[in-house]
């Protein structure tokens, strides 16, 4: 339960806070795997900007990926210049549950 929304004033909300509005049934196993050794050599890392759920973040100079907040759009797979991403549909009913989109 979030008590964040009163702070929805003129400051932009961070992606982590915006995602509090969404609902998932998270699978125990990830539906996306990233070969992070390839990320180290990636010059542009567009996933950091274009994954709408912010699943890819930079820690130091490493790309850290988490699948839990994924909205299953498939963008990362399409844009990854290194072909580092293996992407499946989540299993049986798991993953994002859009209601008002």
């Amino acid at each position, binding site marked *: *339960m*979030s*008590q964040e*929304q*009163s702070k929805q004033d003129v400051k932009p909300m961070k992606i982590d806070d915006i995602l*509090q*509005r969404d*609902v*998932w*049934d998270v*699978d*125990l196993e990830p539906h996306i795997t990233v070969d992070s050794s390839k990320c180290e050599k990636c010059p542009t890392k567009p996933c950091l900007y274009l994954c709408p759920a912010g699943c890819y973040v930079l*820690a*130091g100079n*490493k790309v850290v990926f988490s699948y839990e907040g994924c909205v299953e759009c498939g963008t990362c797979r399409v844009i990854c210049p290194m072909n580092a991403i293996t992407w499946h549909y989540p*299993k*049986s*009913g*798991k993953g994002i*549950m859009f*209601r*008002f989109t």
Partner: protein
Amino acid sequence: MRIVLGIKWVPNTQAVRFDPKTGTLIREGVPSIVNPHDLDATEFALKLKDKFGGRITAITMAPPAAIMGLQHVIGMGVDDGILASDRAFAGADTLATSYVLAKVIERIGDVDLVVFGQETIDSSTAHIGAQVASWLKLPYVYYVEELVDYDESKKEIVFRRKLEDREEVYKVKLPAVISVAMHSQKPRPVRMSYKIRAKLENPIQVWTNKDMGLDPRCIGLKGSPTIVAGITWTPEVPRKKQVFKGDPKEAVKWLIEKLKEEGVLPF
């Protein structure tokens, strides 16, 4: 082994938000799910069936929408389901609910093992397993994590359970009631063939109070002695919001220092 599995169809509490302006819960569009801890129980029951054969019947007391929950566990491999559903059951607390469930189990008959989840995410009482065992006068083992042994001829089963500081092993004579420790299992996914069967053959019976003929003093609001005296909200603790950017190794060192300063880490 003849197994009855108790499940609850609950609002996904992760999706329920609190509106600080009105002090109420925002429930619009909140999807319902099978109580996640009941999926541990489902997995536990399915493992028993995988090993010893038999039949699993899932039961629940709820409005008709809970059929989707029964279909979900049938999709995982449960054989059939019974929905106890009647306006007369509405407004029940855990006592009245457990009474109805106990009567459902009695009516099924010849049950070896009744399996519940540890607790539900929408009320967290952990009452139902113990209360059903009490109504049925059966032994009850809770926080079960693992099957150790089963002697079919003697109808004796051995479970391991974990507590904070120790492990315990229980030998129980069947029939018995257990609750399965939350997060102790890895619930299997729904399978296409099972889910097709759930929708196509709909192996779910609906039992109303006309079928069950239960004493009206023991069910619904009348059978519920629990009174909700009030609800208060935990105040939000202001965060210090300190962010350390840079090398993760340095960040961890910094974090440990900070936690020591705050007295969170004792050493």
